[in-house]
Structures are given as structure tokens and as C-alpha cells.
């Protein structure tokens, strides 16, 4: 969708929908929201809906950051301890590597 052709209320509605969708454990939707509406929120000349869009973009960015940190932490913990955890690690794995612990 070409954002430049959408009217301002439609942009706000889109941004809000994306923000709310992200709560369904979908941090990537927040990340897309940030990328997509960043220019609308901070670069475009002001228009009435912009302040709300700005808020949603900032919140989405915070959510994305939180998820990124949480995921990286978990991945590092899991990957470094997977072999040591033994059976537990196997039960929470979807793909088990071949030929190694």
C-alpha cells in the first residue's frame, strides 16, 4: 500500500491497528509499524492525526526493543546451556541438531 496516497485518518487507523495487533505476541508487527510510520510521525509537516501516530510509533518501538532484548537473552541462555539441560532442552526444542550433544 502506498502510504502517500492514503488520507490522514486512514493512516492513523492503520497505525493503531498495527500497534494493537502487536500485543498478540507479534513483535514483528510492531517493528514493521515503526519502520512504516517513522517518516509519517517524525519527518512530515504536522497534521492533526500526527501526534497520535507519533505516540503509537514510539510505543511500538519500545515494545520491539523489549522483545529484542528478551529474545536475545533467552537465545543466548538456551544456546549456551542446551547441552547441559539434557532432556528438558530436548523437550522444548523443535529441531534437534544431528550428531552433537
Amino acid at each position, binding site marked *: 500500500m502506498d502510504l502517500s496516497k492514503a488520507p490522514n485518518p486512514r493512516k492513523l487507523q492503520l497505525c493503531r491497528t498495527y500497534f494493537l495487533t502487536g500485543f498478540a505476541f507479534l513483535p514483528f508487527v510492531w517493528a514493521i509499524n515503526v519502520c512504516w510510520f517513522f517518516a509519517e510521525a517524525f519527518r512530515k509537516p504536522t497534521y492533526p492525526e500526527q501526534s497520535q501516530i507519533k505516540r503509537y510509533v514510539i510505543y511500538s518501538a519500545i515494545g520491539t526493543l523489549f522483545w529484542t532484548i528478551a529474545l536475545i537473552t533467552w537465545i543466548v541462555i538456551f544456546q549456551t546451556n542446551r547441552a547441559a539441560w539434557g*532432556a528438558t532442552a*530436548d*523437550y522444548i*526444542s523443535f*529441531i*534437534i541438531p*544431528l*550428531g552433537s*550433544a
Partner: protein
Amino acid sequence: MAQEVKSAAIWLLLLLQSSAIVISERTRDKIYQPIIGASCFRRLNGTHQTGCSSTYSGSVGVLHLINVEADLEFLLSSPPSPPYAPLIPPHLFTRTNLLRLKEAGPRIISVVLLINRPKKMNQFSHELNCPNQYSGLKLDNRTETVTCDVTNVGNTWNPWGTGLLHEDFPFPIYYIADAEEIDKLESCFEKFNNFDYASHALRSLCAVEVKSFMSAAVNSEVCMRRTNFINNLGGSKYCDPLEGRNVYATLYPRNSPENLEANAARRVNANEKFIIVSCRLDTTSMFDGLGLGAMDSLLSLATLTHVAHMLRLLLPTQSTLPDPKRNVLFVAFNGESYDYIGSQRFVYDIEHLAFPTRSTHSTPISFENIEFMLDIGTLDDIRNIKLHTLTATPLAQQLLQKLNQYAKSPRYGFNVNIESNVGYQIPPTSAQSFLRRETKFPALILNAVPGNKYYHSVYDDLDNVAFIYGNTSEDYTILADINDKKYFDADSLQMKVRNVSSIVAMALYETLTGKQYQGNEVASSILADEFFYCYLQSSDCPLFKASSYPNSPAGLPLPPMRYISVLGGSQESSGWTYRLLGFLLSHPEPNVPKENCSQLPLFYFAGLNGTGECRRTTQNFTSALSPAFLIEDYDWRSGQYSTWTESTWSQFSARIFLRPSNVHEITTLSIGIVVFIISFCLIYIISSRWEVLFEDVPASNAALPPPTAC
């Protein structure tokens, strides 16, 4: 006219092109040359992984021929262009050398090739000094068996053992038996590698790539858990338990009218008495599909077969014996090389009244039914055999006296002396599984003083037992006269087996009938000749043919594989042994026509002449899968039962090629990157100056004319 000539010329040219001039060889085939050999693979037990594995995409190493130990020093101290793949002859394939290569790590040594040049080899055994060290008879909750002392190597059951079969290697080991393949490797090494070592890093070198990636890791517990894991959507198998079949047969057919009902509880018949005569069916080696185990286990299987055959021909009907409820049970246990899989399962089955299986419609056998067990261990040197027992018993005394009476008898001239050995120094044979359950179990073990320098290795072959096929074309189904020595030398393998088997069979004859054996007939050395030909040279042999259905497809012209393998493996040796014991122990039923001879126990054999004959058989299989895989929540570290599994793999392959030098590789990569960047710049320039090239063409992003409204 000119037109026609022209077209004819074109056709001719095309024809020539397609037939003679065009050489369609794939680039891949020009680069690589396959090497045929056998690979080492990974096995796992309750606590460890053993064997070898390549990296996922195949391990690559530069060929380096090792002639003396100093060549190895060169690779380990200052390798100019690692990783290397040493080509090692068997006499340098020692524990010390292999552990040094392992220590150097896969960055220095990535592949090891064992080449079949046994000239300087004096010994070669990869088994432990104490085979089955962690199973067998144990005392006071110790993890190691009490029957073998590792600290006193000279007194162990395999003093020449290196234990390499139980090591874990970070590189693949590939065995190349064929002389042509070895020459291929050597000439490639000489041509490209074996000069000016200093410049190795700067030039192309002959290298080998070995693919033998193993899926399983850590231990049996981990890989079985992963294999059985419910989330395992891919359905990938990591490992399989070692699994095979024990073969058993009784001397007399058993009558079990009380157990014909399928659902009724099974009752033991307390009157039945069995003498178990047993041996080992399997062998093993480090490399897939190789290892005949000629001396380490085939000799005992041959002896068991001959004893069975001789007793079957000598003994009168069961009802005329002093004790008409007595019978002899011959069992060949499978998987004994891997912590007594077969005998552990056999004992477990007897404990659970599950032997023979319900489907045989026969009465189960309990330990109370077993009178004693005579286990035939390794017979490396038949002049030096001992009868091992845990404690001195009158039973052992009597049997030894009977054995020696025939062994020393001038009448038969066997000239064998069997000594008694009482105590915990017991050889690693199946009887240990029985003794482990109950040390009072009447187990007697015939075992020679260890003399096999190639125990559990690829070199335990027909040369190791000095077997030469006599191919006499004589009748092997009858017993021979004691004075019949025309075909084989006194110290030939055939005569050795004839002598030992005759002694054992005569002693058992006396035990069963209560009378001394007075006959002139002894076991047939011709049967021994045929037996070894089948098991050591070719399954397409007269003896196997006679014991199959008439005109059934012949066996492969290769000896049957005797490694236990896994479920779905070839199970060749158990199948052949089953038919062979069936044939040799059965009674002819000349009045049953072929049509009515299709249901066991009746079986239609091709027979000696291949004409076909109906016989009443007594043989059957039992499962040789360790109880560890049957018991729910089995403690894998308990050491109670065998836990051996074999990793799965997708392929074994090896090929040689010219590996470019590092400099060459870096140059190629750099040129590639440069071309990549230049192409980007070029496209950018062309794109930004498109008008120069395409003057009249409208821009692609120009609005298209609107569709015509209808």
C-alpha cells in the same frame, strides 16, 4: 544441387559431432575419483559414544603416506598445510599413534585412512584387553567384571587388545582393502604431495574427502530419547538398538500338547531336563560390513554344529535313554560382542517364562529345567583347552574326566589334554550372563588359552585360521571313520574342529546314555571343510544350498555378515545358521509328500543332492534385543543390561581430488568479490544513463495509456 550438397554436409557434421567428437564427461567426474573402502561408524552405550564421524558435509584432508613413525612426527609437529589425512598401514595403527592423532584435533588431522598393507603387522585387535569389561559377572556392586584383571594385561582374555573399538574419534577412519585403490591413493600422493614440503601451502595438493556423518551423539539414552520424541515431526531416527536373533535347536523334538491353547497360562514341565550347549554367533570389527571373526567365534560355532550333528546321528531315540525326559538344547547367542545381548535376553526370557515364545506352542523352559550348561568359548589353540567353572563341583569333575578320557584315548589319537580351571578367572562368554543371575548356576566353559592376535578385527579371516578349502565333494552328512585321514593334514583347521567336536560329543553321549562311547565314528572333517567355506568364503556353497528349500536363490558369493547389526539389517548369519542347524539336527520324514511338508516343524530341504527331502526340524529363533530396551524407564547407567545402539547415517563415501592451495582459494574469492562490486557499479551507471542506450524507448515507469472504456 548446391543446396542439397550443403544440407548433406551439415548433416554429416552433426553426425560426426554426436558420435565421435563429443565427449560428454561431467565436470564432477573429472575433478573427483571415488575410493572404495569401509568406514568406521558410531556406536553408543549407556554412558559414552564410540567410533567415528565425519563433519556434516564431509571431512577433507591432504594425503600423507606414513611409512615410519617419523612421518607421523612431521604431521603432528609442523604440518605445512593442515588438515592432513594420514595413510596408515596396520602395523602403525596402534593405540599410542591413534590417540596422538586424536589429541592433535580435527584442525590438524581430519581423516585417517587405514591401508591394507599387513606385511609388518604382528598383531591387530581393537577390542579391549577385557572384552565385555563392564558386563559379565560382577561382585559387590563393582562396575567392572571380576572375571578379568585389567591391571595385569598379560593375564587378560585379549592381551593384544588396543581398545580402539571403544574410543571416540573426532575424525572419520576409512579402511581401504583393495590394492588397486591403495595404489590410486599412493600415486596421487607421490605425484602431487611427496616433494618440497615447504611449499605445500602454496600449491595444489592431492586430498581425500570422506563422508560418514553420524546422526546420534552423547549416549544411548540421549539418542533413544530423541528418536522416540513425540515432537520429532521430521520422524528422523538418531540411533537403533543393536538387535538380532539367537538361533536354537533341540536334539530331540519337544512334545508339548499341554501348551497348544493360545490364551491359557503357560506351565513349566518340571520333568523336562535340558543340557544347554551354547556358543557365540556374532563377531565385530571397527569397519562396516567387514570382519569374519574366523578364530574369535566361528571356530566355536563350527564346534557346536559338529557336536549337534554327531549327537543327532549317534544317539538312539529319546525314549530309550536312561532318562527319557532329557534333551539337549543348542543355542548360538547373537550380539555377545556387545555386552552379551543375546544371552542377557535369553536369561531375561527364561526368568519371565517367555522362552520359547508363545507362538511356538511349546512348553516354557525355566531354570529348574536346566541340568547344566556347556558353553563353548574361543578355541584359539586346541592343544591348550581349559574347562572353566566358578566353583569345584562333582558335575564339573565328572565331565572333565569324561572329556579327558576321550581326548587322551590312544584309540582315537586326539592327543588333547583338557585342564580344569576353577575360580573367578572366567572367559568372556555367554555363560557369564547366567552366572551373573545366580553364581551357583551349573555353567561349564570350554575355552582355550587366548592366542588370537587379531581378535575382533578385519584380519581375523581365513588366513588367521589357516583355512584351505578342500572341496572334496564327499558326503558331509555322515560321520567319518576315525582312521579316515586322507583329505586333510593332522593340524589342519578341519581336523582340529573334528577332534574337539568329537571329544565334546562323545562326552555328552556318555552323559546322556550312561554308556561309554565305543564306536569308531567321529565328527566329519568334510562337514568342517564345507562349513568354513560357507562362513569364510562364499554363501553360495554346497552346505547352505543343501539346507535351503530346493532351487531357492543361491546366497551371495560373499561370506555372510556376522555382526549383529540392527533391526532391518541383513541378519544373514542367523538365517543361515538357523537353516543349517535345522538341516543337520532334523530327522528325515520319507513318507511325507512335498505338498504336506510346508508347515514347521516339517521343512522341505534341498538336501545333499539337491533333490529335496522332507524333514522334521527342531530349530527356531529368539529375539536378541537387550532387555534394556524393553523395560520402561530403564536406568541407562545402571550397567545391568547391554545398552548398545548404532547411530544412523545417510552415506559412506570417499573420493580424492586436487585441493587448491590457500593462496589459490583466497585469490578466487577476491576476484569474485571484485567482479561482484564492479557489476553493481556498472548496473548503476547503465541505469542512471539509460537515455544514452535506449533513446526512443519510453521509461518503464511512464504511465501506461489508460484502457479504452467500452
